[in-house]
């Protein structure tokens, strides 16, 4: 793995953390005061900052840092997470997401926005008093250098240890060429028992010290009691060390960086001259009186090893002694180890159990897709095999048939399981919508509350990916056009805060997503007028409420008097409808004046397979998506009525429905088929109306694997995709809406397709 891959992982993780952050903030916004929620939010920002720091993403780090600081105030109960505070935080989460995206894909972010938020966050962190200074993004406080003077003050009892304060002035350095003298540091190091308890080791510290320069060590074992009184966990030794080093006292102290709280440490510098003077006495300066005084116990070790050992050759011995000290502790723990072995084994067994739960792996999407394609081939192959066996086997039940049935079942199960791998909860998309709502609410000055339900409903990843855009557009529409301004709502006796409800649920093998607002509902008079103005309908057309509502799905239709930047953007609900249809889905609207509108989308759970009705038209085998079909019927001569030059209607239960000859539309034949010889498929089509599609015969109902026609050939108007049937032949999947549109005299459009990808 290289850094780029890790960076990729980092950005993936950022996305997860951002989702976590947002959902946590929203929970807080809903009054959740669980400390774990606050912690999770804090951790999310903290993680992003940590990773960003490692990759040197400074913009991200500095913003995350300010954000984190403010969150820490919430975490430590210094800042009450009121609605206003959370508003700033939610916006900050958005900016953090922008910064993350900018760091990944390049591009820029709204500098002014992030600066404003940094100011607001800082103001929150410092209490409500607004930070007066025009706080430019503060660089993150640099990590303290290890060489930073450690806050250990020389112990006052140094004199007891026999050291005299050495006058030291920088003046000396000025006068003399400093480089000539390498100062010597004298160190007294007396570990406490905590030092060992925290996993530090005197021997390692001495080893590090010896790397600073020439070193001599004296180990003082005077405090070591007789064996029977010895506590293996106690610290009895202390060391006196003299190091000739140019690293200075700071360098020495940095060796003890981890240990300085758990030991008595005295470090002082002696200039070589003085050391030399002391050396004149033929006694090393560490031969200190206090140690003699401490000879209260007449331990045998003390008498033998009392002599100060200052020769460098003895350094190793002193280190060995220190080693012994820690070994003692190790022996003690090893004894305990055996005693606890059984208990440990039991805990380990529990641990294994616990870690087995909820394990996941991350797999490259390409691999899953390849698997799905292969399973698709398997399904086709299995169907072909079944068919050829049936054709060649006249005995009816044979062992081969039995085996084939099992194979079929297994294939179906494999297919379902593989599809389940791709299935993902719609949660990430729903969470993105929360941001969309916030942004539009901000711009329009409306107060909006987004309620999401069924976020854990799972659907194929491709569907999820393609869902975001139409959904964003619809949410914009709902807030911008659907909801009224707060004052108006209040005047109408509604809650000034509008509600947009986003729901996902599974219904008969499809996912149904509902978007409901409690706004004004569709202004039918306005829609109708607009449609007349745009020549969409005749001025005297008699339309049902439902038909008027569905007019908003027409191309180029917009009811807003001025096209706002939000929901306008030159595209209308027709684009939404088409993207939903491209996913093999349907969209419908129901609206109640004064109470709001509900958009209902029904989408297939996967784009890889489709339940279809296999039909014959002019000798060709076609597949009609089952979702489009309302019912099938055998027309009777009495039910067929001619209308105009070539149009025909079929009467079904006292209502008339146009007959559409599929063979004519697709140019399979040039003459009209006789409806009585065929079968009519009643389909739901664009605009809510129904049409009866004429086909020659129904072969059966089957699940088919979708193969993209565009990817393998080219787009064919009226055809959505292709599939391979059991007999190995290619069958085309009908694009019902395109065919219906063509029957109304519109040419088959190039841009309509049902499952663009297979």
């Amino acid at each position, binding site marked *: *793995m*290289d850094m780029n*891959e*890790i960076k990729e*992982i*980092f950005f*993936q*993780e950022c996305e997860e953390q951002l989702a976590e952050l947002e959902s946590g903030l929203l929970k807080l916004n809903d009054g959740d005061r669980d400390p774990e929620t606050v*912690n*999770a939010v*804090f*951790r999310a920002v*903290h*993680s992003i*900052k*940590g*990773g960003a*720091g*490692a990759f*040197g993403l400074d913009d991200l*780090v500095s913003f995350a840092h300010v954000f984190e600081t403010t969150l820490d105030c919430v975490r430590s109960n210094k800042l009450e997470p009121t609605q206003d505070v959370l508003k700033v935080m939610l916006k900050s989460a958005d900016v953090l997401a922008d910064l993350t995206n900018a760091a990944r894909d390049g591009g820029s972010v709204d500098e002014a926005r992030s600066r404003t938020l940094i100011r607001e966050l800082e103001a929150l962190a410092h209490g409500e008093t607004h930070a007066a200074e025009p706080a430019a993004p503060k660089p993150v*406080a640099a*990590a*303290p250098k290890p060489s930073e003077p450690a806050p250990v003050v020389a112990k006052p009892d140094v004199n007891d240890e026999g050291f005299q304060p050495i006058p030291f002035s920088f003046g000396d350095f000025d006068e003399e060429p400093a480089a000539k003298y390498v100062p010597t540091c004298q160190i007294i190091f007396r570990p406490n028992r905590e030092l*060992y*308890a*925290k*996993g*530090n*080791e005197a*021997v*390692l510290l001495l080893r*590090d010290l010896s790397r600073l320069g020439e070193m001599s060590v004296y180990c003082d074992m005077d405090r070591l009691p007789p064996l029977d009184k010895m506590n293996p966990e106690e610290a009895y030794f202390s060391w006196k060390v003299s190091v000739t080093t140019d690293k200075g006292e700071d360098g020495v102290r940095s060796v003890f*960086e*981890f240990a300085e*709280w758990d030991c008595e440490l005295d470090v002082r510098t002696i200039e070589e001259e003085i050391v030399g003077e002391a050396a004149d006495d033929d006694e090393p300066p560490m031969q200190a009186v206090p140690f003699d005084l401490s000879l209260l116990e007449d331990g045998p070790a003390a008498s033998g090893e009392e002599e100060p050992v200052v020769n460098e050759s003895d350094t190793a011995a002193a280190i060995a002694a220190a080693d012994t000290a820690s070994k003692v*502790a*190790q022996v003690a*723990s090893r004894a*305990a*180890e055996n*005693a*606890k072995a059984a208990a*440990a084994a039991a*805990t*380990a067994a529990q*641990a*294994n159990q*616990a*870690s087995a739960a909820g394990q996941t792996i991350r797999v490259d999407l390409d691999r899953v897709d390849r698997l799905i394609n292969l399973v698709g081939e398997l399904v086709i192959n299995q169907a072909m095999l079944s068919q050829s066996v049936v054709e060649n086997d006249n005995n009816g039940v044979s062992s081969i048939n039995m085996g084939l049935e099992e194979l079929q079942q297994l294939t179906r199960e494999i297919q379902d399981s593989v599809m389940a791998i791709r299935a993902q909860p719609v949660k990430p998309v729903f969470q993105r919508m929360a941001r969309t709502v916030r942004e539009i609410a901000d711009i329009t000055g409306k107060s909006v509350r987004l309620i999401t339900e069924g976020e854990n409903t799972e659907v194929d990843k491709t569907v999820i990916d393609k869902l975001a855009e139409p959904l964003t557009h619809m949410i914009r529409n709902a807030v911008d056009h659907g909801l009224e301004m707060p004052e108006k709502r209040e005047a109408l006796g509604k809650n000034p805060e509008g509600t947009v409800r986003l729901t996902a649920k599974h219904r008969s093998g499809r996912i149904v997503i509902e978007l409901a607002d409690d706004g004004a509902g569709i202004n039918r008079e306005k829609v109708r007028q607009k449609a007349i103005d745009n020549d969409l309908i005749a001025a005297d057309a008699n339309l049902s409420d439902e038909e008027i509502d569905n007019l908003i799905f027409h191309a180029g239709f917009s009811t807003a008097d001025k096209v706002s930047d939000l929901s306008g953007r030159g595209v209308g609900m027709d684009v939404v409808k088409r993207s939903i249809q491209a996913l093999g889905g349907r969209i419908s609207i129901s609206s109640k004046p004064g109470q709001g509108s509900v958009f209902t989308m029904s989408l297939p759970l996967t784009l890889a397979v489709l339940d279809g009705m296999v039909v014959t038209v002019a000798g060709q085998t076609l597949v009609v998506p089952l979702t489009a079909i309302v019912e099938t019927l055998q027309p009777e001569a009495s039910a067929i009525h001619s209308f105009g030059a070539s149009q025909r209607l079929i009467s079904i239960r006292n209502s008339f429905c146009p007959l559409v000859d599929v063979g004519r539309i697709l140019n399979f034949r040039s003459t009209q088929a006789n409806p009585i010889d065929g079968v009519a498929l009643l389909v739901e089509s664009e605009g809510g109306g129904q049409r009866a599609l004429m086909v020659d015969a129904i072969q059966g109902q089957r699940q088919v694997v979708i193969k993209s026609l565009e990817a393998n050939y080219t787009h064919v108007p009226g055809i959505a995709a292709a599939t391979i049937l059991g007999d190995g032949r290619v069958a085309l999947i009908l694009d019902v809406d395109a065919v219906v549109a063509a029957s109304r005299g519109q040419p088959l459009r190039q841009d309509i397709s049902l499952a663009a990808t297979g």
Partner: protein
Amino acid sequence: MKKKVLTVDDSRTIRNMLLVTLNNAGFETIQAEDGVEGLEVLETSNPDVIVTDINMPRLDGFGFIEGVRRNEKFRAIPILVLTTESDAEKKNRARQAGATGWIVKPFDPTKLIDAIERVTA
């Protein structure tokens, strides 16, 4: 023999960086995602040194360190705290919990290896 390092961090990014850095430096690396898992893994892995984050779900770094230090079998293992918290208060708490030393993020491979070398023989 390779030295064995147990790393405890909830961030996948940092876990991967630790893994790469430590493996490149010739350590054997075992990883856990939070304090709870860290204590579980500890039982079976018997590491020479532990590197842990502070902010983690379920059981944070402080709790994890205390857990290790309470464990008769493993309490002598050196523990390095790897965290972005550079302020004295956090360091202090980690130390009180029983941390051997610390490495200040942003993550720097050299600093990490240095610190591990410092606390292991």
